[in-house]
Protein backbone atom coordinates (compact mmCIF):
# COMPACT_ATOMS: atom_id res chain seq x y z
CA UNK A 1 0.00 0.00 0.00
CA UNK A 2 1.13 3.48 -0.81
CA UNK A 3 0.82 6.58 1.32
CA UNK A 4 1.39 10.31 0.80
CA UNK A 5 4.31 11.92 2.55
CA UNK A 6 5.79 15.42 2.52
CA UNK A 7 9.40 15.48 1.29
CA UNK A 8 11.64 18.42 2.20
CA UNK A 9 14.85 19.15 0.31
CA UNK A 10 17.62 21.23 1.83
CA UNK A 11 20.81 22.94 0.69
CA UNK A 12 22.44 21.20 -2.30
CA UNK A 13 19.65 18.62 -2.56
CA UNK A 14 17.12 21.42 -3.04
CA UNK A 15 19.26 22.87 -5.81
CA UNK A 16 19.56 19.46 -7.52
CA UNK A 17 15.87 18.60 -7.16
CA UNK A 18 14.89 22.10 -8.24
CA UNK A 19 12.35 22.40 -5.42
CA UNK A 20 12.21 22.70 -1.64
CA UNK A 21 9.27 20.42 -0.91
CA UNK A 22 6.72 18.15 -2.56
CA UNK A 23 4.08 15.64 -1.58
CA UNK A 24 4.68 12.20 -3.09
CA UNK A 25 3.13 8.77 -2.89
CA UNK A 26 5.44 5.98 -1.67
CA UNK A 27 5.03 2.48 -0.19
CA UNK A 28 4.09 2.44 3.48
CA UNK A 29 6.83 -0.10 4.22
CA UNK A 30 10.22 0.01 2.57
CA UNK A 31 13.92 0.31 3.34
CA UNK A 32 15.62 3.68 3.66
CA UNK A 33 17.60 2.83 0.52
CA UNK A 34 14.38 2.17 -1.39
CA UNK A 35 12.91 5.42 -0.10
CA UNK A 36 15.97 7.27 -1.39
CA UNK A 37 15.61 5.48 -4.75
CA UNK A 38 12.04 6.79 -5.01
CA UNK A 39 13.40 10.31 -4.64
CA UNK A 40 16.30 9.74 -7.03
CA UNK A 41 13.87 8.31 -9.63
CA UNK A 42 11.86 11.53 -9.48
CA UNK A 43 14.97 13.75 -9.55
CA UNK A 44 17.85 11.92 -11.25
CA UNK A 45 20.28 14.77 -10.48
CA UNK A 46 20.07 13.78 -6.81
CA UNK A 47 22.40 10.88 -7.65
CA UNK A 48 25.23 13.40 -7.31
CA UNK A 49 24.80 13.42 -3.52
CA UNK A 50 23.82 9.75 -3.03
CA UNK A 51 27.12 8.94 -1.31
CA UNK A 52 26.88 11.82 1.15
CA UNK A 53 23.34 12.13 2.27
CA UNK A 54 21.06 10.81 4.99
CA UNK A 55 17.31 11.08 5.37
CA UNK A 56 15.27 12.31 8.28
CA UNK A 57 11.95 10.55 8.82
CA UNK A 58 9.64 12.30 11.26
CA UNK A 59 12.68 14.40 12.25
CA UNK A 60 14.90 11.44 13.12
CA UNK A 61 18.02 10.64 11.09
CA UNK A 62 18.00 7.45 9.02
CA UNK A 63 21.07 6.42 7.02
CA UNK A 64 20.57 4.86 3.59
CA UNK A 65 20.58 1.08 3.83
CA UNK A 66 18.46 -1.89 4.80
CA UNK A 67 16.75 -0.19 7.76
CA UNK A 68 12.99 -0.58 7.46
CA UNK A 69 10.98 2.61 7.37
CA UNK A 70 7.24 2.67 8.12
CA UNK A 71 5.41 5.67 6.74
CA UNK A 72 1.95 7.02 7.46
CA UNK A 73 -0.01 9.66 5.64
CA UNK A 74 1.35 13.15 6.26
CA UNK A 75 4.73 11.99 7.55
CA UNK A 76 7.66 14.34 6.95
CA UNK A 77 10.71 13.01 5.14
CA UNK A 78 13.75 15.27 4.67
CA UNK A 79 16.84 14.96 2.51
CA UNK A 80 19.83 15.94 4.64
CA UNK A 81 23.10 16.75 2.82
CA UNK A 82 26.26 17.10 4.94
CA UNK A 83 25.63 19.61 7.70
CA UNK A 84 27.43 22.94 7.83
CA UNK A 85 25.82 24.89 10.65
CA UNK A 86 27.77 26.78 13.26
Amino acid at each position, binding site marked *: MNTEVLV*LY*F*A*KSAELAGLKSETISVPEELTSQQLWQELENRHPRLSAVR*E*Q*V*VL*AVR*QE*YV*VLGNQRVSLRAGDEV*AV*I*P*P*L*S*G*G
Partner: protein
Amino acid sequence: MNDGDRDAQDLIKLTYDKLSADAASDTVLCPSCGAVSMFIGTTRNNFEGKKVVQLEYEAYIPMAESQLKKIFCDIRERWSTVRHICVHHRLGVVPVTEASVIVAISSPHRVQSLEAVAYCIDALKASVPIWKKEVYETEDSTWKENKECLWAGGTLK
Protein backbone atom coordinates in the same frame (compact mmCIF):
# COMPACT_ATOMS: atom_id res chain seq x y z
CA MET B 1 21.00 29.07 48.22
CA ASN B 2 19.37 29.46 44.82
CA ASP B 3 17.05 32.24 45.90
CA GLY B 4 15.76 33.96 42.84
CA ASP B 5 17.15 31.35 40.47
CA ARG B 6 14.92 30.20 37.64
CA ASP B 7 14.69 26.52 36.81
CA ALA B 8 17.35 25.37 34.38
CA GLN B 9 16.57 26.98 31.02
CA ASP B 10 17.10 25.63 27.50
CA LEU B 11 17.16 28.69 25.26
CA ILE B 12 17.09 28.19 21.51
CA LYS B 13 16.61 30.87 18.88
CA LEU B 14 16.94 30.50 15.10
CA THR B 15 16.57 33.97 13.66
CA TYR B 16 17.12 36.11 10.60
CA ASP B 17 18.13 39.01 12.85
CA LYS B 18 21.64 40.03 13.85
CA LEU B 19 22.90 38.17 16.93
CA SER B 20 24.04 39.84 20.15
CA ALA B 21 26.55 38.51 22.69
CA ASP B 22 24.89 40.55 25.44
CA ALA B 23 21.46 39.14 24.62
CA ALA B 24 22.82 35.59 24.74
CA SER B 25 24.79 36.07 27.96
CA ASP B 26 21.87 37.83 29.66
CA THR B 27 19.61 34.83 29.05
CA VAL B 28 21.93 32.47 30.95
CA LEU B 29 22.89 34.68 33.90
CA CYS B 30 21.80 33.34 37.25
CA PRO B 31 22.49 34.49 40.80
CA SER B 32 24.03 31.19 41.94
CA CYS B 33 26.42 30.94 38.97
CA GLY B 34 29.87 32.49 38.82
CA ALA B 35 30.64 31.58 35.24
CA VAL B 36 29.27 32.17 31.76
CA SER B 37 31.25 30.65 28.91
CA MET B 38 30.54 31.59 25.34
CA PHE B 39 31.47 30.75 21.81
CA ILE B 40 30.72 33.05 18.88
CA GLY B 41 31.12 31.72 15.36
CA THR B 42 31.74 34.47 12.83
CA THR B 43 31.93 34.62 9.06
CA ARG B 44 35.48 34.48 7.72
CA ASN B 45 36.57 36.51 4.72
CA ASN B 46 38.45 33.73 2.98
CA PHE B 47 38.44 30.03 2.16
CA GLU B 48 41.37 28.35 0.44
CA GLY B 49 42.43 31.60 -1.17
CA LYS B 50 38.96 32.65 -2.34
CA LYS B 51 37.51 35.86 -1.00
CA VAL B 52 34.20 35.24 0.78
CA VAL B 53 31.68 38.07 0.64
CA GLN B 54 28.88 36.48 2.66
CA LEU B 55 27.39 33.27 3.99
CA GLU B 56 23.81 32.14 3.54
CA TYR B 57 22.32 29.81 6.14
CA GLU B 58 19.24 27.63 5.95
CA ALA B 59 17.82 25.24 8.54
CA TYR B 60 15.32 22.46 8.95
CA ILE B 61 13.96 24.53 11.79
CA PRO B 62 11.79 22.15 13.85
CA MET B 63 14.35 19.35 13.63
CA ALA B 64 17.22 21.75 14.39
CA GLU B 65 15.41 22.70 17.57
CA SER B 66 14.78 19.09 18.57
CA GLN B 67 18.41 18.14 17.84
CA LEU B 68 19.62 21.06 19.96
CA LYS B 69 17.39 19.88 22.80
CA LYS B 70 19.00 16.44 22.56
CA ILE B 71 22.44 18.05 22.78
CA PHE B 72 21.33 20.05 25.82
CA CYS B 73 20.17 16.80 27.50
CA ASP B 74 23.58 15.24 26.79
CA ILE B 75 25.29 18.30 28.29
CA ARG B 76 23.19 18.12 31.45
CA GLU B 77 24.05 14.43 31.82
CA ARG B 78 27.78 15.05 31.43
CA TRP B 79 28.03 18.30 33.41
CA SER B 80 25.35 18.13 36.06
CA THR B 81 26.13 21.58 37.47
CA VAL B 82 25.49 23.34 34.14
CA ARG B 83 22.65 25.77 34.72
CA HIS B 84 21.26 27.54 31.63
CA ILE B 85 22.13 26.75 28.00
CA CYS B 86 21.52 29.16 25.13
CA VAL B 87 22.09 28.69 21.40
CA HIS B 88 21.28 31.52 19.00
CA HIS B 89 21.83 30.65 15.34
CA ARG B 90 21.37 33.15 12.55
CA LEU B 91 19.73 32.20 9.25
CA GLY B 92 19.72 33.85 5.86
CA VAL B 93 22.52 36.16 4.76
CA VAL B 94 25.37 36.74 7.24
CA PRO B 95 27.98 39.31 6.15
CA VAL B 96 31.69 38.86 6.88
CA THR B 97 32.67 39.30 10.59
CA GLU B 98 29.07 39.02 11.80
CA ALA B 99 28.09 36.19 14.13
CA SER B 100 26.36 33.12 12.72
CA VAL B 101 26.10 31.27 16.03
CA ILE B 102 26.39 32.09 19.72
CA VAL B 103 26.56 29.44 22.44
CA ALA B 104 26.32 30.63 26.06
CA ILE B 105 26.30 28.37 29.11
CA SER B 106 26.28 29.21 32.81
CA SER B 107 27.58 27.12 35.71
CA PRO B 108 28.57 27.80 39.33
CA HIS B 109 32.26 27.23 38.48
CA ARG B 110 33.96 27.84 35.18
CA VAL B 111 35.39 24.46 34.18
CA GLN B 112 31.99 22.92 33.53
CA SER B 113 30.65 25.71 31.33
CA LEU B 114 33.93 26.00 29.39
CA GLU B 115 33.92 22.26 28.64
CA ALA B 116 30.20 22.26 27.88
CA VAL B 117 30.53 25.13 25.38
CA ALA B 118 33.26 23.28 23.47
CA TYR B 119 31.12 20.13 23.47
CA CYS B 120 28.01 22.03 22.39
CA ILE B 121 29.53 23.65 19.32
CA ASP B 122 31.16 20.34 18.27
CA ALA B 123 27.83 18.53 18.64
CA LEU B 124 25.94 21.30 16.85
CA LYS B 125 28.25 21.04 13.86
CA ALA B 126 27.91 17.25 13.84
CA SER B 127 24.17 16.82 14.22
CA VAL B 128 21.99 19.93 13.87
CA PRO B 129 20.38 20.25 10.40
CA ILE B 130 21.64 23.68 9.36
CA TRP B 131 23.55 24.43 6.17
CA LYS B 132 25.68 27.28 4.93
CA LYS B 133 26.58 28.35 1.45
CA GLU B 134 29.73 30.40 1.00
CA VAL B 135 29.37 33.10 -1.63
CA TYR B 136 32.64 34.23 -3.18
CA GLU B 137 33.74 37.50 -4.71
CA THR B 138 33.84 35.61 -8.03
CA GLU B 139 30.04 35.12 -7.64
CA ASP B 140 30.26 31.35 -7.45
CA SER B 141 29.33 29.60 -4.25
CA THR B 142 29.81 26.33 -2.35
CA TRP B 143 27.68 24.42 0.12
CA LYS B 144 30.04 23.80 3.02
CA GLU B 145 30.44 20.53 4.93
CA ASN B 146 31.42 20.36 8.59
CA LYS B 147 34.21 17.89 9.20
CA GLU B 148 32.27 16.92 12.34
CA CYS B 149 29.35 15.65 10.21
CA LEU B 150 29.52 11.87 9.94
CA TRP B 151 28.18 11.67 6.39
CA ALA B 152 30.30 14.45 4.91
CA GLY B 153 33.06 13.62 2.48
CA GLY B 154 31.53 10.61 0.77
CA THR B 155 31.30 7.74 3.24
CA LEU B 156 29.76 7.29 6.65
CA LYS B 157 32.66 7.27 9.01
